[in-house]
């Protein structure tokens, strides 16, 4: 063995990528864990009320390495003060995960494997978009009906040509310069010119500007009018696909906060999902008690009304709306109706008839019945009635708890629907 008392070495560590590789493995596991928790996550309040790409923290218990450990959060620990600490002094706020517990010093440390008291769970950070990507991974658009009429055209412009005439504001500087170089190179004059090949500031055309006081560096001569190139555009027409979501909900007295919350979670994800597939997604909110009317989002989710329920009213309104504004030949319409199932008995046949008509006009019709288990009873009237629709484009979903939102999404946009 080499017995020199010390050696200082600087090896090449560029191939030591172990940490990175295992970190990737860990990331994949985090993703898997999130995927397993999706049902909980999609109905998470902090997620469905987001502003932009805000980052959400997702607690994942399964990624904290299991081991036998003490329940330290309530146990006494030793701390150190700055002098004069008395019994009864408060030394910290409990923040839920016992983090003010003594850990290793912040300066160095980390010599041991796995000595730190772990946090209760591992917290992964991801953006709402990343979460959406995971949620939508298995979702597909069901039953796209071919649209007979040409889909909406939209005018757009694309700069895709270069010409010798055009507007000054559209000068293509690079090409102009290139033309000048080319011309002078052809003419053999591209050397020893008077001034450097610089365009003037401000984007104006420096045609023929002499450069008396510049050094005789290699050089481009003046740019003349013939060199100048302009970018020009073409009008383009591209088909635009758009979808309409008809959000229908029973807002009668029996629909409480929980029911509306469930509906809201569902529509949040539904619209978000459709936006990944269509350029334009419109959502219209139709609320009904015994009468149906279109309301804004705020009213839809927050305002409750009292009174009875006549579900046929909302199907009728939906049909009118489709007839007037969204002809099935050019629109992909998705209708979803939430109710607690408590419909006026005499209205059921009419509801059934209208639902069947609506079904012919839309890509899909969904019916979600929200019943909290705690209620103990349920009328199930509308559920049983609509069951008879028996169409592949009709989906029924029962939502009893928050987690069922994800199930419903899957039922609506899942594999079997897309086949």
């Amino acid at each position, binding site marked *: 063995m080499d017995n020199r008392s*010390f050696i200082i070495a600087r090896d090449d560590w560029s191939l030591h990528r172990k*940490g990175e590789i295992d970190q990737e493995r860990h990331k994949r596991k985090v993703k898997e864990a999130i995927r397993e928790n999706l049902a909980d996550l999609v109905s998470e309040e902090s997620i469905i009320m987001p502003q932009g790409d805000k980052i959400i923290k997702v607690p994942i218990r399964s*990624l904290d390495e299991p081991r036998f450990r003490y329940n330290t959060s309530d146990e006494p620990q030793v701390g150190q003060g700055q002098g004069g600490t008395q019994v009864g002094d*408060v030394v910290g706020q409990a923040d839920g995960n016992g983090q003010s517990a003594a850990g290793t010093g912040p300066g160095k*440390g980390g*010599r041991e494997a796995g000595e730190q008291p772990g946090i209760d769970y591992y917290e992964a950070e991801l953006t709402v978009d990343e979460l959406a990507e995971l949620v939508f991974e298995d979702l597909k658009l069901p039953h796209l009906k071919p649209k007979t009429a040409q889909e909406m055209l939209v005018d757009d412009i694309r700069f895709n040509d270069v010409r010798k005439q055009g507007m000054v504001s559209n000068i293509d500087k690079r090409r102009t310069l290139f033309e000048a170089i080319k011309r002078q190179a052809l003419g053999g004059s591209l050397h020893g010119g008077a001034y450097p090949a610089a365009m003037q500031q401000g984007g104006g055309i420096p045609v023929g500007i002499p450069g008396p006081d510049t050094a005789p560096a290699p050089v481009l001569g003046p740019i003349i009018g013939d060199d100048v190139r302009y970018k020009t555009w073409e009008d383009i027409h591209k088909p635009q696909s758009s979808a309409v979501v008809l959000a229908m909900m029973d807002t009668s007295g029996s629909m409480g906060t929980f029911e509306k919350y469930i509906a809201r979670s569902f529509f949040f994800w539904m619209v978000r999902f459709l936006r990944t597939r269509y350029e334009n997604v419109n959502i219209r909110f139709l609320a009904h008690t015994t009468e149906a009317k279109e309301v804004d989002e705020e009213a839809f989710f927050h305002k409750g009304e009292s009174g009875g329920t006549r579900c046929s009213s909302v199907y009728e309104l939906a049909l009118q709306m489709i007839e007037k504004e969204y002809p099935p030949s050019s629109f992909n319409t998705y209708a979803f109706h939430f109710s607690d199932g408590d419909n006026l008995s005499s209205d059921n046949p009419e509801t059934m008839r209208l639902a069947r008509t609506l079904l012919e006009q839309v890509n899909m019709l969904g019916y979600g019945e929200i019943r909290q288990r705690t209620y103990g009873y349920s009328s199930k009237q509308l559920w049983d009635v609509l069951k008879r629709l028996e169409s592949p484009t009709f989906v029924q979903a029962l939502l009893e708890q928050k987690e069922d939102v994800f199930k419903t999404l899957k039922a609506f946009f899942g594999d079997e629907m897309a086949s």
Partner: protein
Amino acid sequence: MLLESDTQQLEQSVEQLTDAAIQHGLDFFPMRYQFCPSEVLYSIGAYGMPTRFSHWSFGKAYHRMKSEYDHGLSKIYELVINSNPCYAFLLDSNTLLQNKLIVAHVLGHSDFFKNNAMFGGTDRNMVDRMAVFANRIEAFSQEYGMDEVEAFLDAGIAIQEHVDPYVRFGHVDGFRETDGSIKDVIGYIATHSRYLEEWQREILHMLRAEMLYFWPQMETKIMNEGWASYWHLKLVRELELSDSEIVEFAKMNAGVIQPTPGRINPYYLGLMMLRHIERKEGIEALFEIREVESDVSFIRNYLTRELAEDMDLFVYQKQQQVYRVTANDVNEVKEQLIRSRTNGGFPYITVRDDDLHGRGELLLHNRFDGMELDRKYVERTLPLVFKLWGRSVHLETMAGGKTVTYVYDGKQLVS
């Protein structure tokens, strides 16, 4: 980043520091200083060893440490490996002065590794042995599938700290517990489980060997850091430093040993205790202590009332929504510190029966020491023990003042 001229200067300083350390009586392994970029240093920190096997949990630790570093929350200047020769990894962005301090600090660690009794039974060739382990695990992954091996490692790692440290000293089965049960849970399962395949037994034995190697480091954190800090202060002060270096040194030293309000900094606690002892009993006493004590005995024997008051140590506990000081009496402080460091800070768990009810079921026993187990973790760990044992697994412990037995039978956990 070190310049060429700095490198020469560093060579000189290392030589001076090394000579001075020898003159002061330090007795260390030959030193191998290795400069490396932060990603490498942090990966060594996460794995505990540059050659260790791959597992996602190390990747997770690496990610956490690295992002703390990237965000300027914490910094590791060096990592030192208990081996002969002794490898010390230094961050390549350290300044010359930082490196001087670190070299002095690391000499203290190397001396401690070589001379402290707890390290007596550790394998000084562990760097190479771990590389062999890593290769074996890699080969198993190829043969049996990565997911399969990873899932098995998950289970093994869940009980890896339940070893018997005395097996290091030639007691092959460790010492019998007074009730006849066996502390070496992972070793026992590796040998006696009827359902493991050979490669699985081999993995458990490897995890056990690695844990036995790391164990003394957990047992001596306060002493080891205190000792190294004591020496970096002493040795660097003997170097001729420029004024600006003196300021930089003071800053860095303060950063390393400063007490963090509300927490225990092992560097600070160890250093203060050693200094206190030196004043009373002279430096020879320190050399003896570094040889025979572990953190538990060190605190029990040397943490005095005077010291505890000087350092303003106290016991605190969560009460409702705040942490409140419940005691500052030295005996309570000592008791709490000792308790938190006993058995590496892990619950004491032994194998009590491997044929419970005559059905080959495993009975684990948790020796209750006043702290309850975290139930949520028990719920997740027992199924993993089941995976290793292959039959129902029982864990006996105390909860709410009563004896409780958790049982996992392969399907569900009951208590």
